[in-house]
Protein backbone atom coordinates (compact mmCIF):
# COMPACT_ATOMS: atom_id res chain seq x y z
CA UNK A 1 0.00 0.00 0.00
CA UNK A 2 1.69 3.15 -1.07
CA UNK A 3 0.27 6.37 0.17
CA UNK A 4 2.72 8.54 -1.67
CA UNK A 5 2.87 8.03 -5.40
CA UNK A 6 6.29 8.20 -7.02
CA UNK A 7 5.39 11.23 -9.07
CA UNK A 8 4.17 13.23 -6.07
CA UNK A 9 6.08 16.27 -4.82
CA UNK A 10 8.19 16.15 -1.66
CA UNK A 11 5.64 17.29 0.83
CA UNK A 12 2.81 15.07 -0.39
CA UNK A 13 0.50 14.52 2.61
CA UNK A 14 -0.35 11.01 1.31
CA UNK A 15 -3.24 9.96 -0.91
CA UNK A 16 -5.18 8.70 2.09
CA UNK A 17 -4.80 11.82 4.16
CA UNK A 18 -7.55 14.29 4.80
CA UNK A 19 -5.55 16.93 2.95
CA UNK A 20 -4.99 14.76 -0.11
CA UNK A 21 -5.22 16.99 -3.15
CA UNK A 22 -5.76 20.10 -1.01
CA UNK A 23 -2.46 20.67 0.77
CA UNK A 24 -0.13 23.34 -0.51
CA UNK A 25 2.21 20.63 -1.74
CA UNK A 26 -0.56 19.38 -4.01
CA UNK A 27 -0.55 22.44 -6.24
CA UNK A 28 0.87 21.31 -9.54
CA UNK A 29 1.00 17.64 -8.56
CA UNK A 30 -0.16 15.49 -11.50
CA UNK A 31 -2.48 13.57 -9.16
CA UNK A 32 -4.22 16.56 -7.73
CA UNK A 33 -7.55 15.99 -9.43
CA UNK A 34 -7.55 12.40 -8.37
CA UNK A 35 -6.77 13.15 -4.78
CA UNK A 36 -9.11 16.10 -4.47
CA UNK A 37 -12.04 13.92 -5.52
CA UNK A 38 -11.92 11.82 -2.36
CA UNK A 39 -14.89 12.21 -0.09
CA UNK A 40 -14.22 12.79 3.57
CA UNK A 41 -16.41 11.05 6.08
CA UNK A 42 -17.11 11.06 9.76
CA UNK A 43 -16.91 8.40 12.46
CA UNK A 44 -19.02 5.38 11.78
CA UNK A 45 -21.58 4.05 14.24
CA UNK A 46 -21.59 0.72 12.43
CA UNK A 47 -18.35 -0.24 14.10
CA UNK A 48 -20.08 -0.58 17.43
CA UNK A 49 -23.01 -2.49 15.92
CA UNK A 50 -20.71 -4.94 14.25
CA UNK A 51 -18.68 -5.41 17.35
CA UNK A 52 -21.80 -6.37 19.24
CA UNK A 53 -23.15 -8.55 16.49
CA UNK A 54 -19.97 -10.53 16.12
CA UNK A 55 -19.28 -10.82 19.82
CA UNK A 56 -20.66 -14.36 19.78
CA UNK A 57 -18.31 -15.42 17.02
CA UNK A 58 -15.12 -16.88 18.39
CA UNK A 59 -12.85 -16.99 15.37
CA UNK A 60 -13.25 -14.73 12.39
CA UNK A 61 -11.13 -15.65 9.41
CA UNK A 62 -10.81 -13.68 6.20
CA UNK A 63 -9.99 -15.64 3.05
CA UNK A 64 -8.00 -13.38 0.75
CA UNK A 65 -5.88 -13.63 -2.33
CA UNK A 66 -5.16 -10.51 -4.31
CA UNK A 67 -5.55 -12.57 -7.47
CA UNK A 68 -8.89 -13.67 -8.83
CA UNK A 69 -9.89 -17.23 -9.59
CA UNK A 70 -7.20 -18.86 -7.51
CA UNK A 71 -9.76 -20.79 -5.48
CA UNK A 72 -10.70 -18.64 -2.49
CA UNK A 73 -14.33 -19.63 -2.69
CA UNK A 74 -13.54 -23.28 -3.32
CA UNK A 75 -11.18 -23.33 -0.35
CA UNK A 76 -13.68 -21.48 1.82
CA UNK A 77 -16.42 -23.99 1.13
CA UNK A 78 -14.05 -26.94 1.50
CA UNK A 79 -12.82 -25.66 4.85
CA UNK A 80 -16.36 -24.85 5.94
CA UNK A 81 -17.43 -28.43 5.28
CA UNK A 82 -14.19 -29.69 6.78
CA UNK A 83 -14.62 -27.75 10.04
CA UNK A 84 -18.28 -28.72 10.30
CA UNK A 85 -17.40 -32.40 9.92
CA UNK A 86 -14.50 -32.21 12.31
CA UNK A 87 -16.45 -30.46 15.06
CA UNK A 88 -20.05 -31.72 15.00
CA UNK A 89 -20.75 -29.76 18.19
CA UNK A 90 -19.45 -26.47 16.96
CA UNK A 91 -21.16 -24.02 14.65
CA UNK A 92 -19.51 -22.78 11.50
CA UNK A 93 -20.63 -19.83 9.41
CA UNK A 94 -19.62 -18.66 5.96
CA UNK A 95 -20.08 -15.07 4.87
CA UNK A 96 -19.80 -14.57 1.14
CA UNK A 97 -18.61 -11.00 0.90
CA UNK A 98 -18.08 -11.12 -2.86
CA UNK A 99 -20.93 -8.89 -3.75
CA UNK A 100 -20.12 -8.75 -7.45
CA UNK A 101 -19.75 -12.45 -8.07
CA UNK A 102 -21.04 -14.44 -5.12
CA UNK A 103 -20.23 -18.12 -5.65
CA UNK A 104 -21.01 -19.70 -2.28
CA UNK A 105 -24.72 -20.39 -2.89
CA UNK A 106 -23.81 -22.54 -5.87
CA UNK A 107 -20.78 -24.18 -4.31
CA UNK A 108 -22.70 -25.07 -1.17
CA UNK A 109 -25.73 -26.28 -3.11
CA UNK A 110 -28.21 -23.77 -1.72
CA UNK A 111 -28.84 -21.61 -4.75
CA UNK A 112 -32.29 -20.10 -4.87
CA UNK A 113 -32.90 -20.37 -1.13
CA UNK A 114 -34.75 -17.53 0.52
CA UNK A 115 -33.28 -15.58 3.37
CA UNK A 116 -35.61 -14.12 5.93
CA UNK A 117 -35.41 -10.90 7.78
CA UNK A 118 -36.79 -10.88 11.28
CA UNK A 119 -36.64 -8.42 14.14
CA UNK A 120 -33.19 -9.63 15.09
CA UNK A 121 -31.69 -9.57 11.61
CA UNK A 122 -31.15 -11.73 8.51
CA UNK A 123 -31.24 -15.45 9.18
CA UNK A 124 -28.52 -17.28 7.33
CA UNK A 125 -29.26 -20.36 5.22
CA UNK A 126 -28.37 -23.71 6.76
CA UNK A 127 -26.26 -25.92 4.54
CA UNK A 128 -25.96 -28.61 7.19
CA UNK A 129 -26.73 -28.99 10.88
CA UNK A 130 -23.83 -26.85 11.93
CA UNK A 131 -22.91 -24.95 8.76
CA UNK A 132 -24.67 -21.75 7.75
CA UNK A 133 -24.22 -19.27 4.93
CA UNK A 134 -25.08 -15.69 4.17
CA UNK A 135 -24.50 -14.35 0.67
CA UNK A 136 -25.61 -11.45 -1.45
CA UNK A 137 -26.48 -14.15 -3.97
CA UNK A 138 -29.64 -14.80 -1.95
CA UNK A 139 -30.83 -11.28 -2.49
CA UNK A 140 -30.41 -11.24 -6.25
CA UNK A 141 -33.20 -12.19 -8.60
CA UNK A 142 -31.95 -13.96 -11.70
CA UNK A 143 -28.47 -15.30 -12.34
CA UNK A 144 -28.04 -12.62 -14.97
CA UNK A 145 -28.51 -9.79 -12.51
CA UNK A 146 -25.39 -7.81 -11.99
CA UNK A 147 -24.87 -5.85 -8.86
CA UNK A 148 -23.62 -2.59 -10.18
CA UNK A 149 -22.81 -0.75 -7.07
CA UNK A 150 -20.24 1.86 -6.51
CA UNK A 151 -17.84 1.73 -3.62
CA UNK A 152 -19.90 3.53 -0.99
CA UNK A 153 -22.99 1.44 -1.67
CA UNK A 154 -20.99 -1.71 -1.61
CA UNK A 155 -19.52 -0.69 1.67
CA UNK A 156 -23.03 -0.13 2.93
CA UNK A 157 -23.96 -3.63 1.87
CA UNK A 158 -20.98 -5.20 3.58
CA UNK A 159 -21.62 -3.17 6.65
CA UNK A 160 -25.15 -4.48 6.63
CA UNK A 161 -23.96 -8.02 6.18
CA UNK A 162 -21.64 -7.72 9.10
CA UNK A 163 -24.06 -5.95 11.36
CA UNK A 164 -27.40 -7.52 10.51
CA UNK A 165 -26.90 -11.24 10.11
CA UNK A 166 -28.19 -13.21 13.04
CA UNK A 167 -25.50 -15.87 13.24
CA UNK A 168 -26.20 -17.06 16.75
CA UNK A 169 -23.23 -18.63 18.53
CA UNK A 170 -20.46 -19.42 16.08
CA UNK A 171 -17.07 -20.98 16.63
CA UNK A 172 -15.75 -20.13 13.21
CA UNK A 173 -16.83 -17.54 10.68
CA UNK A 174 -15.08 -17.81 7.31
CA UNK A 175 -15.32 -14.71 5.17
CA UNK A 176 -14.92 -15.25 1.44
CA UNK A 177 -13.77 -12.07 -0.27
CA UNK A 178 -13.64 -10.73 -3.80
CA UNK A 179 -10.25 -10.57 -5.48
CA UNK A 180 -7.83 -7.69 -5.11
CA UNK A 181 -7.02 -5.02 -2.62
CA UNK A 182 -10.34 -3.51 -3.49
CA UNK A 183 -12.80 -1.53 -1.49
CA UNK A 184 -14.65 -4.58 -0.29
CA UNK A 185 -11.52 -5.82 1.37
CA UNK A 186 -10.75 -2.67 3.14
CA UNK A 187 -14.22 -2.57 4.50
CA UNK A 188 -14.27 -6.16 5.57
CA UNK A 189 -11.01 -5.75 7.39
CA UNK A 190 -11.96 -2.42 8.77
CA UNK A 191 -15.25 -3.52 10.24
CA UNK A 192 -14.38 -6.97 11.43
CA UNK A 193 -11.05 -6.05 12.85
CA UNK A 194 -12.39 -2.82 14.19
CA UNK A 195 -14.91 -4.49 16.43
CA UNK A 196 -13.30 -3.34 19.64
CA UNK A 197 -12.31 0.22 18.93
CA UNK A 198 -15.06 2.74 18.92
CA UNK A 199 -15.57 5.26 16.22
CA UNK A 200 -12.98 7.83 16.96
CA UNK A 201 -11.50 7.93 13.51
CA UNK A 202 -12.33 9.13 10.11
CA UNK A 203 -13.52 6.05 8.30
CA UNK A 204 -12.21 7.29 5.02
CA UNK A 205 -8.73 7.27 6.43
CA UNK A 206 -6.65 4.23 6.62
CA UNK A 207 -8.30 1.27 8.26
CA UNK A 208 -5.18 0.64 10.28
CA UNK A 209 -6.50 2.65 13.17
CA UNK A 210 -9.26 0.18 13.77
CA UNK A 211 -7.03 -2.80 13.79
CA UNK A 212 -5.83 -2.65 17.34
CA UNK A 213 -9.18 -4.24 18.15
CA UNK A 214 -9.17 -7.96 18.81
CA UNK A 215 -11.84 -8.74 16.26
CA UNK A 216 -10.11 -10.72 13.59
CA UNK A 217 -8.31 -14.03 14.14
CA UNK A 218 -6.41 -13.53 10.94
CA UNK A 219 -6.30 -14.02 7.21
CA UNK A 220 -5.82 -17.06 5.05
CA UNK A 221 -4.13 -16.10 1.84
CA UNK A 222 -4.70 -18.28 -1.23
CA UNK A 223 -2.35 -18.45 -4.18
CA UNK A 224 -1.59 -20.55 -7.22
CA UNK A 225 2.03 -21.45 -8.03
CA UNK A 226 2.76 -19.19 -10.99
CA UNK A 227 4.47 -15.82 -10.73
CA UNK A 228 1.57 -13.86 -12.24
CA UNK A 229 -0.52 -14.91 -9.25
CA UNK A 230 2.24 -14.57 -6.68
CA UNK A 231 2.81 -10.99 -7.78
CA UNK A 232 -0.66 -10.05 -6.63
CA UNK A 233 -0.48 -12.22 -3.55
CA UNK A 234 2.69 -10.50 -2.38
CA UNK A 235 0.81 -7.24 -2.51
CA UNK A 236 -1.99 -8.75 -0.52
CA UNK A 237 0.45 -9.94 2.13
CA UNK A 238 1.98 -6.51 2.24
CA UNK A 239 -1.46 -5.09 2.64
CA UNK A 240 -2.15 -7.37 5.61
CA UNK A 241 1.10 -6.34 7.18
CA UNK A 242 0.36 -2.65 6.77
CA UNK A 243 -3.06 -3.10 8.29
CA UNK A 244 -1.72 -5.26 11.09
CA UNK A 245 -3.85 -8.19 10.09
CA UNK A 246 -2.31 -11.41 11.25
CA UNK A 247 -1.63 -13.82 8.40
CA UNK A 248 -2.59 -17.30 9.56
CA UNK A 249 -0.81 -18.62 6.53
CA UNK A 250 -0.74 -19.19 2.80
CA UNK A 251 -2.44 -22.06 0.98
CA UNK A 252 -1.09 -22.96 -2.42
CA UNK A 253 -3.89 -24.14 -4.67
CA UNK A 254 -3.81 -25.98 -8.01
CA UNK A 255 -0.26 -27.03 -7.27
CA UNK A 256 0.14 -30.30 -9.16
CA UNK A 257 -2.00 -32.32 -11.50
CA UNK A 258 -2.06 -36.10 -11.48
CA UNK A 259 -3.04 -37.42 -14.88
CA UNK A 260 -6.01 -39.77 -14.48
CA UNK A 261 -4.69 -41.86 -17.36
CA UNK A 262 -0.99 -42.42 -16.67
CA UNK A 263 -0.80 -41.13 -13.08
CA UNK A 264 2.18 -38.93 -13.84
CA UNK A 265 2.40 -35.61 -12.08
CA UNK A 266 2.75 -32.35 -13.92
CA UNK A 267 2.75 -28.67 -13.14
CA UNK A 268 -0.14 -27.09 -14.96
CA UNK A 269 0.68 -23.64 -13.68
CA UNK A 270 4.48 -23.74 -13.59
CA UNK A 271 6.12 -22.33 -10.48
CA UNK A 272 8.87 -20.54 -12.37
CA UNK A 273 9.88 -18.57 -9.29
CA UNK A 274 9.68 -21.28 -6.64
CA UNK A 275 5.93 -21.08 -6.04
CA UNK A 276 4.27 -20.22 -2.77
CA UNK A 277 7.01 -21.90 -0.73
CA UNK A 278 9.69 -19.50 -1.92
CA UNK A 279 7.39 -16.52 -1.45
CA UNK A 280 6.48 -17.56 2.09
CA UNK A 281 10.10 -17.94 3.01
CA UNK A 282 10.97 -14.57 1.54
CA UNK A 283 8.13 -12.78 3.30
CA UNK A 284 8.29 -14.86 6.47
CA UNK A 285 4.74 -16.14 6.57
CA UNK A 286 3.72 -19.73 7.27
CA UNK A 287 2.84 -22.02 4.36
CA UNK A 288 -0.15 -24.08 5.48
CA UNK A 289 -0.15 -26.59 2.67
CA UNK A 290 -0.85 -27.20 -0.99
CA UNK A 291 -3.97 -28.51 -2.70
CA UNK A 292 -3.62 -30.36 -5.98
CA UNK A 293 -5.50 -29.42 -9.12
CA UNK A 294 -8.37 -31.82 -8.72
CA UNK A 295 -11.06 -32.08 -11.42
CA UNK A 296 -13.46 -33.61 -8.90
CA UNK A 297 -13.15 -30.55 -6.69
CA UNK A 298 -14.11 -28.30 -9.59
CA UNK A 299 -17.02 -30.59 -10.36
CA UNK A 300 -18.16 -30.60 -6.73
CA UNK A 301 -18.06 -26.80 -6.68
CA UNK A 302 -20.15 -26.61 -9.85
CA UNK A 303 -22.75 -29.07 -8.67
CA UNK A 304 -22.96 -27.83 -5.09
CA UNK A 305 -21.96 -31.13 -3.52
CA UNK A 306 -19.62 -31.39 -0.61
CA UNK A 307 -16.32 -32.76 -1.79
CA UNK A 308 -16.07 -34.65 1.51
CA UNK A 309 -19.24 -36.52 0.73
CA UNK A 310 -17.97 -37.68 -2.65
CA UNK A 311 -15.45 -39.67 -0.60
CA UNK A 312 -12.86 -39.78 -3.31
CA UNK A 313 -10.60 -42.76 -2.54
CA UNK A 314 -7.01 -41.94 -1.67
CA UNK A 315 -7.66 -38.24 -2.15
CA UNK A 316 -4.58 -36.09 -1.79
CA UNK A 317 -6.90 -33.15 -1.45
CA UNK A 318 -8.47 -34.49 1.73
CA UNK A 319 -5.09 -35.26 3.28
CA UNK A 320 -3.91 -31.76 2.45
CA UNK A 321 -7.12 -30.20 3.72
CA UNK A 322 -6.80 -31.99 7.04
CA UNK A 323 -3.29 -30.72 7.54
CA UNK A 324 -4.35 -27.20 6.66
CA UNK A 325 -7.24 -27.41 9.12
CA UNK A 326 -4.94 -28.66 11.89
CA UNK A 327 -2.79 -25.60 11.45
CA UNK A 328 -5.68 -23.17 11.23
CA UNK A 329 -7.32 -24.57 14.33
CA UNK A 330 -4.04 -24.47 16.23
CA UNK A 331 -3.38 -20.89 15.17
CA UNK A 332 -6.88 -19.78 16.17
CA UNK A 333 -6.77 -21.58 19.51
CA UNK A 334 -3.44 -20.02 20.34
CA UNK A 335 -4.94 -16.55 20.26
CA UNK A 336 -8.10 -17.09 22.25
Amino acid sequence: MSNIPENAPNHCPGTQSEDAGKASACAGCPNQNICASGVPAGPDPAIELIKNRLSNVKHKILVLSGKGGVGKSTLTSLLGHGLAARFPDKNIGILDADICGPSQPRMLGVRGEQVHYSGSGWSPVYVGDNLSLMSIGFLLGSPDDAVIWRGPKKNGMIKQFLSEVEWGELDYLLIDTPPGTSDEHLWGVHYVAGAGVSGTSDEHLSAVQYLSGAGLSGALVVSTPQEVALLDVRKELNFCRKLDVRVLGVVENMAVFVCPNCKSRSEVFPATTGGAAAMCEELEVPLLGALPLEPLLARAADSGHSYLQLQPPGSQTLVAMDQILDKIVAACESTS
Partner: protein
Amino acid sequence: MLENVKSVILVLSGKGGVGKSTVSTQLALTLKERGFKVGLLDVDLCGPSVPHILNLENENIHQGTDGWVPVYLDKEQRLGVMSIGFLLKSRNDAVVWRGPKKTAMIKQFLEDVYWQDLDFLVIDTPPGTSDEHITVMENLRQIPQCSAIIVTTPQEVAIEDVRKEITFCRKTGISILGIIENMSGYQCPTCNECTNIFSSGGGKSLAEISKLQFLGCLPIDARVGKLAGQGLAAVKELPDSTTSKVLNDLVTVLAESIQNGS
Protein backbone atom coordinates in the same frame (compact mmCIF):
# COMPACT_ATOMS: atom_id res chain seq x y z
CA MET B 1 -10.96 11.01 -26.43
CA LEU B 2 -8.99 8.31 -28.28
CA GLU B 3 -9.77 9.87 -31.66
CA ASN B 4 -6.58 8.43 -33.13
CA VAL B 5 -7.54 4.88 -32.29
CA LYS B 6 -9.39 2.92 -34.95
CA SER B 7 -10.71 0.21 -32.69
CA VAL B 8 -10.87 -0.15 -28.92
CA ILE B 9 -11.12 -3.72 -27.61
CA LEU B 10 -12.13 -4.23 -24.01
CA VAL B 11 -11.15 -7.60 -22.59
CA LEU B 12 -13.69 -8.44 -19.91
CA SER B 13 -14.91 -11.22 -17.71
CA GLY B 14 -17.06 -11.38 -14.63
CA LYS B 15 -14.90 -13.91 -12.91
CA GLY B 16 -11.40 -13.44 -11.59
CA GLY B 17 -8.43 -15.43 -12.76
CA VAL B 18 -9.91 -16.58 -16.05
CA GLY B 19 -6.84 -15.37 -17.89
CA LYS B 20 -7.85 -11.92 -19.11
CA SER B 21 -4.34 -10.55 -18.81
CA THR B 22 -2.85 -13.49 -20.65
CA VAL B 23 -5.45 -13.16 -23.38
CA SER B 24 -5.01 -9.37 -23.59
CA THR B 25 -1.23 -9.51 -23.86
CA GLN B 26 -1.18 -12.42 -26.29
CA LEU B 27 -3.86 -10.71 -28.37
CA ALA B 28 -1.86 -7.48 -28.45
CA LEU B 29 1.30 -9.41 -29.38
CA THR B 30 -0.53 -11.28 -32.14
CA LEU B 31 -1.93 -8.04 -33.56
CA LYS B 32 1.57 -6.60 -33.53
CA GLU B 33 3.01 -9.67 -35.27
CA ARG B 34 0.32 -9.30 -37.91
CA GLY B 35 1.53 -5.80 -38.67
CA PHE B 36 -0.90 -3.59 -36.79
CA LYS B 37 -0.07 -0.66 -34.55
CA VAL B 38 -1.25 -1.59 -31.11
CA GLY B 39 -1.69 -0.10 -27.65
CA LEU B 40 -2.20 -2.15 -24.51
CA LEU B 41 -3.74 -0.46 -21.49
CA ASP B 42 -3.80 -2.25 -18.16
CA VAL B 43 -6.43 -0.65 -15.95
CA ASP B 44 -6.11 -3.12 -13.12
CA LEU B 45 -5.23 -0.65 -10.40
CA CYS B 46 -4.82 -3.20 -7.66
CA GLY B 47 -3.01 -6.00 -9.42
CA PRO B 48 -1.42 -4.83 -12.63
CA SER B 49 0.21 -7.89 -14.19
CA VAL B 50 0.90 -6.69 -17.72
CA PRO B 51 4.38 -5.24 -16.94
CA HIS B 52 5.45 -8.59 -15.54
CA ILE B 53 3.97 -10.65 -18.36
CA LEU B 54 5.69 -8.49 -20.97
CA ASN B 55 8.94 -8.31 -19.03
CA LEU B 56 8.75 -4.53 -18.69
CA GLU B 57 8.84 -4.38 -14.91
CA ASN B 58 11.66 -1.88 -14.64
CA GLU B 59 10.37 0.56 -17.21
CA ASN B 60 9.08 4.04 -16.49
CA ILE B 61 6.54 6.19 -18.17
CA HIS B 62 7.36 9.78 -18.92
CA GLN B 63 5.26 12.87 -18.95
CA GLY B 64 5.55 14.34 -22.43
CA THR B 65 4.07 17.54 -23.79
CA ASP B 66 1.05 15.67 -25.20
CA GLY B 67 0.49 13.44 -22.16
CA TRP B 68 1.96 10.28 -20.69
CA VAL B 69 4.23 8.49 -23.09
CA PRO B 70 3.62 4.73 -23.05
CA VAL B 71 6.40 2.19 -22.77
CA TYR B 72 7.18 0.60 -26.11
CA LEU B 73 7.99 -3.08 -26.36
CA ASP B 74 9.84 -2.75 -29.64
CA LYS B 75 12.06 -0.19 -31.31
CA GLU B 76 9.59 0.30 -34.15
CA GLN B 77 7.01 1.33 -31.54
CA ARG B 78 4.36 -1.03 -32.85
CA LEU B 79 3.26 -2.04 -29.37
CA GLY B 80 2.88 0.62 -26.68
CA VAL B 81 2.02 -0.35 -23.12
CA MET B 82 0.53 1.62 -20.27
CA SER B 83 -0.03 0.24 -16.79
CA ILE B 84 -0.38 1.53 -13.27
CA GLY B 85 2.40 -0.93 -12.55
CA PHE B 86 4.86 1.53 -14.08
CA LEU B 87 3.94 4.05 -11.43
CA LEU B 88 4.53 1.73 -8.50
CA LYS B 89 7.84 1.55 -6.75
CA SER B 90 8.14 -2.06 -5.81
CA ARG B 91 6.38 -5.12 -7.12
CA ASN B 92 5.10 -5.77 -3.62
CA ASP B 93 3.30 -2.44 -3.42
CA ALA B 94 -0.43 -2.31 -3.73
CA VAL B 95 -2.12 0.96 -4.48
CA VAL B 96 -5.00 1.30 -2.16
CA TRP B 97 -6.98 4.03 -3.75
CA ARG B 98 -10.58 4.21 -2.74
CA GLY B 99 -13.51 4.47 -5.12
CA PRO B 100 -13.57 8.12 -6.18
CA LYS B 101 -9.81 8.38 -6.48
CA LYS B 102 -9.71 5.24 -8.52
CA THR B 103 -12.31 6.70 -10.82
CA ALA B 104 -10.24 9.80 -11.39
CA MET B 105 -7.12 7.71 -11.94
CA ILE B 106 -8.81 5.62 -14.61
CA LYS B 107 -10.12 8.72 -16.34
CA GLN B 108 -6.61 10.01 -16.46
CA PHE B 109 -5.41 6.71 -17.86
CA LEU B 110 -7.99 6.86 -20.60
CA GLU B 111 -7.57 10.50 -21.47
CA ASP B 112 -4.00 11.48 -20.77
CA VAL B 113 -1.96 8.84 -22.53
CA TYR B 114 -0.44 9.96 -25.78
CA TRP B 115 -0.98 6.89 -27.99
CA GLN B 116 -0.14 8.25 -31.43
CA ASP B 117 -2.17 6.63 -34.25
CA LEU B 118 -3.30 3.14 -33.37
CA ASP B 119 -5.14 0.41 -35.20
CA PHE B 120 -6.11 -1.30 -31.96
CA LEU B 121 -6.14 -0.36 -28.32
CA VAL B 122 -6.56 -3.45 -26.15
CA ILE B 123 -7.78 -2.72 -22.62
CA ASP B 124 -7.20 -5.30 -19.90
CA THR B 125 -9.72 -4.78 -17.13
CA PRO B 126 -9.88 -5.92 -13.51
CA PRO B 127 -12.42 -8.62 -12.67
CA GLY B 128 -15.95 -8.11 -11.60
CA THR B 129 -18.49 -5.41 -12.15
CA SER B 130 -16.36 -3.24 -9.92
CA ASP B 131 -15.84 0.48 -9.73
CA GLU B 132 -13.02 0.23 -12.21
CA HIS B 133 -15.34 -1.43 -14.65
CA ILE B 134 -18.10 1.04 -14.32
CA THR B 135 -15.69 3.90 -14.85
CA VAL B 136 -14.09 2.33 -17.88
CA MET B 137 -17.48 1.53 -19.36
CA GLU B 138 -18.94 4.94 -18.66
CA ASN B 139 -16.03 6.60 -20.33
CA LEU B 140 -15.92 4.33 -23.32
CA ARG B 141 -19.59 3.88 -24.11
CA GLN B 142 -19.66 7.08 -26.14
CA ILE B 143 -16.85 5.86 -28.32
CA PRO B 144 -18.37 4.24 -31.37
CA GLN B 145 -15.32 2.14 -32.19
CA CYS B 146 -15.36 0.35 -28.83
CA SER B 147 -16.35 -3.27 -28.39
CA ALA B 148 -15.77 -6.06 -25.90
CA ILE B 149 -14.39 -9.58 -25.91
CA ILE B 150 -15.63 -11.68 -23.03
CA VAL B 151 -13.29 -14.25 -21.53
CA THR B 152 -14.64 -17.16 -19.55
CA THR B 153 -13.53 -20.52 -18.26
CA PRO B 154 -15.78 -23.52 -18.90
CA GLN B 155 -17.17 -24.22 -15.44
CA GLU B 156 -20.52 -23.12 -14.07
CA VAL B 157 -19.16 -20.93 -11.27
CA ALA B 158 -17.38 -18.83 -13.86
CA ILE B 159 -20.17 -18.83 -16.43
CA GLU B 160 -22.54 -17.50 -13.83
CA ASP B 161 -20.42 -14.42 -13.23
CA VAL B 162 -19.87 -13.91 -16.92
CA ARG B 163 -23.61 -13.81 -17.55
CA LYS B 164 -23.76 -10.87 -15.18
CA GLU B 165 -21.02 -9.19 -17.15
CA ILE B 166 -22.95 -9.64 -20.40
CA THR B 167 -26.02 -8.06 -18.83
CA PHE B 168 -23.80 -5.27 -17.65
CA CYS B 169 -22.43 -4.63 -21.17
CA ARG B 170 -25.92 -4.62 -22.59
CA LYS B 171 -27.09 -2.14 -19.98
CA THR B 172 -24.13 0.11 -20.65
CA GLY B 173 -24.56 -0.17 -24.39
CA ILE B 174 -21.13 -1.62 -25.16
CA SER B 175 -21.26 -3.99 -28.10
CA ILE B 176 -19.87 -7.48 -27.58
CA LEU B 177 -17.68 -9.01 -30.28
CA GLY B 178 -17.91 -12.47 -28.84
CA ILE B 179 -16.89 -14.97 -26.19
CA ILE B 180 -13.63 -16.79 -25.83
CA GLU B 181 -13.24 -19.83 -23.59
CA ASN B 182 -9.94 -20.15 -21.76
CA MET B 183 -8.46 -23.13 -19.89
CA SER B 184 -10.57 -25.59 -21.80
CA GLY B 185 -8.56 -28.75 -21.33
CA TYR B 186 -5.15 -29.88 -20.24
CA GLN B 187 -3.00 -32.23 -22.23
CA CYS B 188 -0.82 -34.50 -20.12
CA PRO B 189 2.79 -33.92 -21.16
CA THR B 190 3.55 -37.61 -20.59
CA CYS B 191 0.74 -39.48 -22.33
CA ASN B 192 -1.03 -36.65 -24.24
CA GLU B 193 -4.37 -37.55 -22.70
CA CYS B 194 -6.55 -34.44 -22.51
CA THR B 195 -8.40 -33.89 -19.23
CA ASN B 196 -11.13 -31.32 -18.96
CA ILE B 197 -10.11 -30.16 -15.52
CA PHE B 198 -12.76 -27.48 -15.44
CA SER B 199 -15.35 -29.43 -17.48
CA SER B 200 -15.86 -28.19 -21.02
CA GLY B 201 -18.18 -26.52 -23.45
CA GLY B 202 -19.38 -23.83 -21.07
CA GLY B 203 -18.21 -20.96 -23.26
CA LYS B 204 -19.87 -22.29 -26.37
CA SER B 205 -23.22 -22.91 -24.74
CA LEU B 206 -23.06 -19.51 -23.08
CA ALA B 207 -22.50 -17.96 -26.50
CA GLU B 208 -25.54 -19.79 -27.82
CA ILE B 209 -27.79 -18.78 -24.93
CA SER B 210 -26.68 -15.16 -25.16
CA LYS B 211 -26.74 -15.11 -28.98
CA LEU B 212 -23.12 -14.06 -29.23
CA GLN B 213 -20.35 -15.16 -31.54
CA PHE B 214 -18.11 -17.89 -30.13
CA LEU B 215 -14.49 -16.99 -30.78
CA GLY B 216 -12.81 -20.25 -29.82
CA CYS B 217 -11.31 -22.32 -27.00
CA LEU B 218 -7.83 -21.80 -25.60
CA PRO B 219 -6.49 -24.89 -23.81
CA ILE B 220 -4.45 -24.80 -20.60
CA ASP B 221 -0.95 -24.86 -22.00
CA ALA B 222 1.92 -24.74 -19.54
CA ARG B 223 4.20 -23.57 -22.38
CA VAL B 224 2.07 -20.47 -22.85
CA GLY B 225 2.11 -19.94 -19.09
CA LYS B 226 5.90 -19.91 -19.20
CA LEU B 227 5.92 -17.16 -21.85
CA ALA B 228 4.59 -14.85 -19.15
CA GLY B 229 7.53 -12.91 -17.80
CA GLN B 230 9.34 -12.94 -21.10
CA GLY B 231 7.14 -10.81 -23.30
CA LEU B 232 7.13 -13.36 -26.09
CA ALA B 233 4.31 -13.91 -28.55
CA ALA B 234 2.75 -17.38 -28.59
CA VAL B 235 2.15 -17.05 -32.34
CA LYS B 236 5.89 -16.67 -32.83
CA GLU B 237 7.29 -19.05 -30.20
CA LEU B 238 4.69 -21.80 -30.48
CA PRO B 239 3.33 -21.36 -34.00
CA ASP B 240 1.82 -24.85 -34.15
CA SER B 241 -0.05 -24.66 -30.85
CA THR B 242 -3.82 -24.51 -30.58
CA THR B 243 -3.36 -21.24 -28.74
CA SER B 244 -1.71 -19.63 -31.76
CA LYS B 245 -4.37 -20.88 -34.11
CA VAL B 246 -7.17 -19.47 -31.97
CA LEU B 247 -5.35 -16.14 -31.59
CA ASN B 248 -4.72 -15.87 -35.31
CA ASP B 249 -8.36 -16.58 -36.08
CA LEU B 250 -9.40 -13.97 -33.56
CA VAL B 251 -7.14 -11.37 -35.16
CA THR B 252 -8.67 -12.18 -38.53
CA VAL B 253 -12.11 -11.45 -37.11
CA LEU B 254 -10.86 -8.18 -35.62
CA ALA B 255 -9.11 -7.14 -38.81
CA GLU B 256 -12.35 -7.62 -40.73
CA SER B 257 -14.25 -5.61 -38.18
CA ILE B 258 -12.03 -2.55 -38.60
CA GLN B 259 -12.20 -2.84 -42.35
CA ASN B 260 -15.98 -2.88 -42.23
CA GLY B 261 -16.02 -0.09 -39.70
CA SER B 262 -13.79 2.39 -41.52
